[in-house]
């Protein structure tokens, strides 16, 4: 192994040094990159598709909105059964004894049924006798009765139709649910839920956890994402809307979601679709550490010597020396 030596002077002893203007090179690079960046910005712009609001969702797909809200009450949505950091309803991902999702507890508490349905309805029930009566009926009913209403209403929603922004279901015993849901739909369509879920009892607010979780529970937003090829099974983490390059540097991370064992129900060594997020984060962490330690890993550090690419890079250095003429 050749060491660096005490100083650069010793390291470069015997090496021919030639003039080189680093500052000029940086100035030219700044100019070239500026021209490239300004040109790309001027001609290709950048993606800026307007975000989906809860109002847009409730207006465009009222059946999906009401179905999602009903499922929130039933506790069957993704967020309701998620587990930590939002609640303790789900197990969370683990790989053997490695279960960081459980370790850190419920740090961002979200009670989906209350936060997305009951509390907004309570606020809207002021001055609305029909809604306050319906809400009272719901809250005083036994859990068993609530379950029967939810079950019947969920089945009816599977064949529901939308007309003039309202959801129509077959007649049945749904208790106060139709009144509650038609009011929630009305608040949603008017834009009230967008405000209620963000403000959440505060004035200044920059945390969109609740509205994003609610919209994520529905099928409307994910349907739009599917059309734009943004979902996880479509290499979504590195894609973006339109024909823009997206986060191409995440290609390796995204790739693992498309291949076995992370697509398999049975998996390999406990790694499977069910704990793919945890498994892939662990795998990518290990690969990143390995990249950093390449100088110390035999084999990986030898590849540059085996491949002749360095001979292309330093072709002047490896070029056969011309014979020296003797006079």
């Amino acid at each position, binding site marked *: 192994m050749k060491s660096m030596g005490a100083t650069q002077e010793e390291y470069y002893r015997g090496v021919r040094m030639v003039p080189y203007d680093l500052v000029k090179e940086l100035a030219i690079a700044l100019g070239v990159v500026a021209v490239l960046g*300004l040109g790309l910005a001027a001609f290709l712009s950048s*993606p800026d598709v307007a975000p989906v609001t809860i109002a847009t969702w409730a207006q465009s797909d009222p059946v999906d909105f009401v179905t999602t809200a009903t499922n929130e009450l039933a506790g069957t949505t993704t967020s309701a059964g998620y587990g930590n950091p939002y609640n303790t309803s789900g197990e969370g991902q683990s790989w053997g004894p490695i279960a960081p999702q459980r370790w850190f507890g419920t740090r961002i508490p979200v009670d989906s049924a209350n936060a997305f349905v009951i509390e907004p309805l309570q606020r809207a029930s002021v001055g609305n006798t029909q809604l306050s009566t319906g809400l009272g009926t719901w809250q005083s009913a036994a859990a068993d009765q609530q379950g029967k209403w939810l079950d019947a209403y969920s089945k009816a929603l599977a064949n529901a139709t939308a007309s003039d922004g309202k959801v129509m279901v077959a007649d049945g015993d749904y208790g106060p649910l139709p009144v509650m849901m038609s009011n929630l739909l009305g608040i949603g369509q008017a834009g009230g839920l967008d405000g209620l879920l963000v403000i959440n009892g505060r004035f200044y607010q920059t945390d969109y956890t609740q509205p994003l979780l609610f919209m994520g529970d529905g099928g409307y937003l994910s349907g739009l994402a599917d059309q734009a090829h943004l979902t996880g099974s479509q290499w979504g983490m590195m894609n973006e809307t339109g024909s823009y390059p997206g*986060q191409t540097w995440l290609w390796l991370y995204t790739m693992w979601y498309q291949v076995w064992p992370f697509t398999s129900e049975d998996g390999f060594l406990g790694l499977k679709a069910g704990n793919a997020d945890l498994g892939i984060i662990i795998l990518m962490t290990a690969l990143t550490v390995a990249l950093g330690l390449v100088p110390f890993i035999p084999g990986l550090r030898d590849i540059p010597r085996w491949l002749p690419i360095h001979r292309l890079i330093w072709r002047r250095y490896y070029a056969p020396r011309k014979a020296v003429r003797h006079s």
Partner: protein
Amino acid sequence: MSATANVEGVATPSEPKSNSWTLGLRRAIDRHLPMDHLLPDRQPYYVGSWVYVFGVVTIAALVWVVVSGVVLAFMGPQWWHDSSVGRFFNSLHFWSVQLFFIFMVLHLWGQYFMAGWRHGRAATWLIGVVIFGVSVLTAFTGYLSQQNFDAQFIAINAKDAMNGAGIGAFFNVLNFGQMYGLHIMLLPIGVTILVVAHIVMVRTRGVVKPIDPEGGVRS
């Protein structure tokens, strides 16, 4: 070593021992990174390949990322949606980031095939990999801070990865305020400090010699 100094108090080649931290720091800088190493006007003759350009264009792209980002941060998050000038600066920021990553990856592959970690340069390589990782995180928080449909769905999609690994308990991708703060303050400062350290390490040791066919490629 004997302590010697001339009558005017100007240090001679054998400087006196001192308890001054300031003098110690100055001497260490002089010893490890003299100005002719920091800004050399001569390089070994083999530093003539285009591969050496990838490093400097990565720095240039980073400069434009920071400049356009400062303008966006100053004007506020609504500006790039409501104003055509804001949209243009957002686009400049977007494409500067794309160029930054293209050049950085080319620089990384170039250094790999040159085995740039040889002769005591492993730490320089390691910091380069850390810069790549922190840059990915910075860009990720940028995508989450866009306040558009992409940001919404990336947040919803990415929360599962963060939560599954336990990271989501502290790094909430659904919290715009947290992501925006990290994106415009802590992470860019981190990238900039690491890049400065990387450059100082490169200039301290100089560029590595070509691979000796008979030699190894260890650090």
